[in-house]
């Protein structure tokens, strides 16, 4: 076993760090929200200009040669800095088009994705199909050379600024649940699409669109028949692959959070008190650090398997659970250490570390829910990892 990076990878890591040092500004902070802030756009634009959205893509589609590990490194460094990541369009959707799309779709979409000009929004979840995604009811049927779509989707966070839906629809209602689903690309500005805003726990009025998510209604929406990814009724495969790809790039800055806690504990307050000298504080931070290293190593195991071409749902599930649940724990414990002052998010100089922990506390509860709840993922581990039988 060798946990070290190759010399080329180390060199690349240094290059990424230098880039972040030169270009990153506080207004680019990703954990500020899910919105398409000007900061996010500007920073991802810089990454695109540098060519880093193209890492590891096939040369014939404008790719730049790299080891798959280099993309993992890039994502890790961006997360550590609190910077936006490359986004699902590059990390998951583009890969889906590459593996399952027609040549025509590749020509139409890949270059735009790699230039950060085309953004996608997952449109999977429905009001009555969340964890039980295969129960989705949004219908699509062919009429001539068009798909006609009717239904409703929930939690489509980037719908108000992305360009296309990566849309899961039922195309054969008579087939078993997983087998009657297809994956379509639907332009968001299509006639018949209605997007409405949903108010969330993470939403902060003063900042408008930050933390926005959406409900989307499809009312006889018509798209070209060629906008299907993979074969008709085989969309489940495309969805699963995209989710697996996404899990290779977690964007939860555990190390940054723990290091920020250490920084806070080491700095004395006005009276000279240093939390780092308090055994209770030391115990909490040490416990979180150990868990952070464990989550990190689980991620390395998963990444190593996936990069070697092995898909392991159990390993991916373990990593997602470990990272998302620890993130929530770190935020909660940090606020306990900060005391009442930790409740202040912004508006006075008394915010701790710019209010980052307080805002992230709100968001952290979403980690164990989004992209597969911890409960569903534990079922995956039980069945696929431990070989236990399916239960009700």
């Amino acid at each position: 076993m060798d946990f070290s990076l190759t010399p080329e990878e180390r060199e690349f890591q240094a290059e990424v760090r230098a880039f972040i040092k030169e270009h990153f500004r506080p207004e680019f902070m990703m954990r500020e929200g899910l919105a398409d802030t000007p900061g996010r756009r500007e920073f991802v634009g810089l990454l695109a200009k540098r060519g880093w959205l193209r890492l590891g893509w096939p040369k014939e589609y404008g790719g730049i040669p790299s080891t798959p590990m280099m993309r993992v490194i890039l994502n890790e460094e961006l997360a550590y800095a609190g910077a936006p990541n490359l986004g699902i369009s590059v990390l998951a959707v583009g890969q889906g088009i590459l593996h399952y799309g027609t040549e025509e779709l590749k020509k139409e979409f890949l270059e735009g994705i790699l230039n950060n000009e085309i953004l996608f929004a997952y449109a999977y979840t429905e009001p009555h199909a969340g964890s039980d995604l295969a129960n989705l009811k949004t219908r699509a049927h062919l009429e001539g050379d068009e798909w006609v779509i009717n239904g409703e989707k929930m939690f489509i966070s980037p719908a108000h600024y992305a360009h296309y839906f990566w849309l899961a629809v039922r195309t054969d209602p008579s087939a078993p649940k997983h087998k009657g689903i297809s994956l379509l690309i639907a332009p968001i500005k299509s006639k018949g699409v209605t997007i409405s805003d949903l108010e969330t726990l993470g939403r902060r009025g003063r900042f408008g669109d930050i933390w926005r998510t959406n409900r989307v209604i499809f009312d006889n929406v018509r798209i070209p028949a060629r906008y299907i990814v993979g074969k008709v009724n085989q969309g489940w495969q495309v969805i699963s692959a995209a989710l697996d790809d996404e899990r290779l790039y977690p964007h939860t800055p555990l190390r940054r959070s723990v290091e920020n806690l250490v920084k806070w504990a080491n700095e004395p307050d006005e009276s000279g008190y240093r939390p780092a000298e308090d055994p209770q504080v030391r115990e909490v931070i040490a416990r979180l650090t150990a868990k952070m290293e464990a989550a990190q190593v689980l991620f390395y195991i998963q990444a190593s398997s996936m990069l070697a071409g092995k898909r392991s749902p159990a390993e991916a599930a373990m990593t997602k659970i470990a990272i998302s649940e620890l993130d929530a724990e770190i935020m909660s414990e940090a606020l306990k250490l900060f005391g009442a002052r930790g409740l202040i998010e912004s508006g006075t100089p008394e915010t701790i570390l710019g209010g980052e922990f307080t805002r992230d506390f709100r968001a952290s509860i979403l980690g164990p829910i989004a992209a597969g709840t911890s409960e569903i993922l534990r079922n995956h581990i039980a069945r696929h990892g431990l070989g236990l039988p399916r239960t009700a």
Partner: protein
Amino acid sequence: MKLELTWEQQALEDSVRKILQGVKVPIKATELEAQPNGYDEGLWKQFIEAGFTGLLENNSFTELVVLHEQLGYFRAQLPLITSCVTGLGLLRLLKSQPEAAAIAGKVSAGDAIIAPALWGGGKDTASPQKGVIRKNGKITGKKLLVPFFDCARWLVVLVDSDPLQLCLVEAKAAGIRGVKPDNLAVENAWTVEFSDTPVLLSAEISKPQLDKALLPSAMAITALSAGAAKKALDMTMEWVNMREAFGHKLASFQVLQHYLTNIAMDTAATRHLAYYGAWSLAHDEENAARIVASGKLFAGESFERIAGISLRMFGGHGFLEDSGMPLFFRRAKAWQLSMGGHQFWRDVLAQASGLRWSATDGK
């Protein structure tokens, strides 16, 4: 032992429920935040008319728990703990002065609000006195998260000195400035700056006196948490019995049943600790600090667990304000850290349990 409420207490519970059922309390945290003054003035008037603002003056601790349990359940937001529990509790430390008794009378009658300004910005969360000093009889400095500052007539300010001092000031006195920051708590809380602010009344107090004065507040927060936890449990039960996944009601999945059982156990324990605390304040002074501090600490942990798990059982819907879960999630954290966070109450509990920092400590 007889662990039921008396008929008078049951009657009180019924009357509070009746009042609260008659008002429309927003389900969204964001709507509660948007209330002018941060509370429902009509509801506050009804509480005053019913005499609920004077319960601490009569040492009616169990009645205070009954009241706050229902407030928690119905999600209502009032300056009751702020003014009529914490404010009055601290005024008792100034009561050798006749003006303090007159002010206490007005606060008990609901004629005016008094707000505590206790917590400074220091990193040592077990030592709240930091932030404000007294010089030439006037106070200067800053206190954080002062509740209902904009509605208060008086502030009772904890001053950093040896021994500690408690100072009563007029909320609109010269040299006082308030800023309302965004905060996680769904509460009208302010950062208040004092600059050579004149003091109306003051008293030197010891740390044990301060701890003791805050016990009814901790008990009331435990009761609020118990009521809110019960509401979260009821709403989650309704959801899992209605919502289906994989062809079954969510309620039929064993893992979720276990979560719900844990919530029910946590809720029951929190509720009983609140009532045990009330009983100890009235009848077992020697153990009151130990029991009330245990309740505050347990409630802080349990309601956070309950709010988090309930929200998760709603899935993505739990993240939406319409589900009502964000309110519980935010309040759980806020109540855990309010009126002394973990470190403060752990210290109180450690002292009350006989742990000593040094041979001279506690004298």
